[in-house]
């Protein structure tokens, strides 16, 4: 069993545990490379037929290439796709130009997710976050409860050992399940290559630039790069000194922004 096999089998085990424990669940599919890898692992876990919906939280400010990718593969994988939007905020005209990044991210992503969970009564969500993305995500559990206000009680997280996880949720609590927690960015790309998982073209360099992490258009910046193939992307990541989410403006602005966003329910 090689390294990628080990990552894959552990993730599949976690996905199956989650589905056993929480039938009312969904995959949170942001259309990026991580959640697409997670979708692939779900396809493996359930032999090609996802027994739960894929949820896309749509701020309406994503790249056109992301919507294209979503619609193409939702069809190809035969997904039950749920698109969740904060219609009320969008009607009021909330956008990244007139609203500050923190507030806009909170309203269009976190609040939209809250509404979607409430509407469909999901008890668990599969989310493709990884420990190496951000120091605060490194503190996560595989099965991480959120209370009805969506708060992450990071001061008192459940114990996890020997592949035993929190398997029941109290009323008004939902579980965030993180099957990719132990993967690195490089692992994702190496696995994507091995498995031939579809990749959004925004990740490959064009005119000396590429996106290393995808989000909302106004707050996601490309990096300088000549990596226009998957092999070159892997090589670039091996040698970079830059952080993966350096192009994601919502993480920064002020010290500990990510912690504040996450404690309010951000992914």
């Amino acid at each position, binding site marked *: 069993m090689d*390294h990628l096999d080990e990552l894959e089998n552990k993730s599949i085990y976690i996905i199956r545990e989650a589905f056993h424990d929480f039938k009312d669940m969904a995959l949170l599919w942001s259309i990026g490379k991580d959640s697409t890898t997670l979708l692939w692992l779900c396809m493996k876990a359930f032999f090609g037929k996802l027994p739960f919906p894929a949820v896309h939280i749509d701020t309406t400010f994503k790249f056109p290439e992301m919507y294209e990718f979503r619609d193409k593969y939702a069809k190809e994988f035969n997904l039950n796709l749920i698109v969740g939007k904060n219609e009320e905020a969008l009607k009021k005209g909330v956008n990244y130009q007139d609203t500050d990044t923190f507030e806009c991210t909170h309203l269009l992503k976190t609040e939209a997710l809250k509404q979607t969970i409430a509407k469909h009564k999901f008890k668990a969500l599969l989310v493709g976050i990884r420990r190496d993305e951000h*120091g605060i995500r490194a503190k996560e559990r595989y099965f991480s409860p959120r209370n009805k206000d969506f708060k992450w009680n990071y*001061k008192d997280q459940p114990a*996890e050992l020997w592949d035993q996880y929190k398997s029941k949720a109290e009323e008004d609590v939902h579980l965030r399940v993180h099957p990719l927690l132990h993967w690195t960015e490089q692992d994702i790309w190496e696995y994507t290559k091995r498995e031939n998982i579809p990749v959004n073209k925004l990740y490959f360099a064009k005119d000396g630039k590429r996106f290393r992490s995808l989000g909302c258009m106004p707050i996601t910046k490309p990096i300088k790069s000549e990596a226009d193939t998957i092999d070159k992307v892997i090589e670039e990541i091996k040698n970079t000194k830059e952080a993966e989410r350096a192009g994601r403006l919502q993480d920064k602005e002020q010290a500990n922004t990510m*912690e504040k966003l996450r404690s309010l329910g951000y992914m």
Partner: protein
Amino acid sequence: MIKEYLKFVIVGHVDHGKSSLIGRLLFDTKSIPQEKIDEVKTVCEALGKDFEFSYLMDYLTEEREKNITIDTTQTFFKTKQRDYVIIDAPGHKEFLKNMITGSSLAEAAILIVDADEGIKEQTKRHAYLLNLLNLKQIIVVINKMDLVDYQEKRFKEVEQEVITHLNKLNLKPNYIIPISAKNGDNIATKDNNLNWFQGPTVLDALDSFTNQFQEENLPLRLPVQDIYEDMVVGRIESGKIEKNQEITILPSNVSNKVLSIKKWREELDLASYGHSIGLKLDDIQVKRGQIICDKDNLPQVVNNFKATIFWMSSNEIKVNEIVSLKIVTQEQDVVIKKIHKLMDSSTLEEIDGDVIKETYIAEVEFKSDKPLVIENYNKIPEMGRFVLIQNEDIVAGGIIV
């Protein structure tokens, strides 16, 4: 069979320098993006402090303000030899469950001891838990040598203190190394301040460790995780399974046969431990919690068994109280019939009474109404370790020896 990462945990008493050592390891191996260093600089300046290595790991506001690690965290770095995952574990007694959560994933451990203070309450407790978690590759670092003027004499005293205590636990460290995380002595490079020390640096010591693989030739144990239509799914915890193999399903003790082995689009003739697979069986009367076994080498099926448990919740438990036990995919209500021995996990002193409390270790006898399929922890660890659950939360871990 090459695995590219070695996972190791850093444990020890509060304030002995765990997070600083990690910060130093990352810094010296050039594993931190400039952006992270800048972020920490900004935060330190905002708080009016000098650059804190520990902030590279301690990300929560409260951790930074109080200079403590609350929760376990993980980070990655590389040496010329291979990649590492470092698990940082908190040193406070109140965060013991976080320490265990982190340590349970490790293949090696660094136990850190302050050269000035010597071994303390959590040093001893963590040492005991490393032993219980079956961690056999251990480096003890005597940190803050700069505070004791890099004296060899002081190092020898603390070294002796450490050896004496670890001997009581039958724990033999592979290395005991004097360091200063703050100044970078003996972490990545040898330094003049400690030139009397002949042993390796911390990185050299880590590079000498090996990945922990399961023993070869163990019998097949495949706990049933779920059933998808006519497909039995689960992960092979030990041994291997082949197409057409005759198997025995416990505890019902029914014979069955493997018709096919699947992994999404692939059809396999054979699968070995660690793989999450799907099976088509001759008889589909199978349910979660049953164990698919090698028919010629069966595990124990028991209603009563002895185990050592460590309690990590502020809730307590009394003899004869019902608690839920989970071992692989088996889940069963059990009661503790008898406590043979109750101990403080730091002092190892025996405690009288029939109430098991946070941080206690207990040798107990369990009774279950329904049979459980188990193994000795030393034979097949995956089948010999379990957790206890109260009010939906994991409150204790245990091993069957």
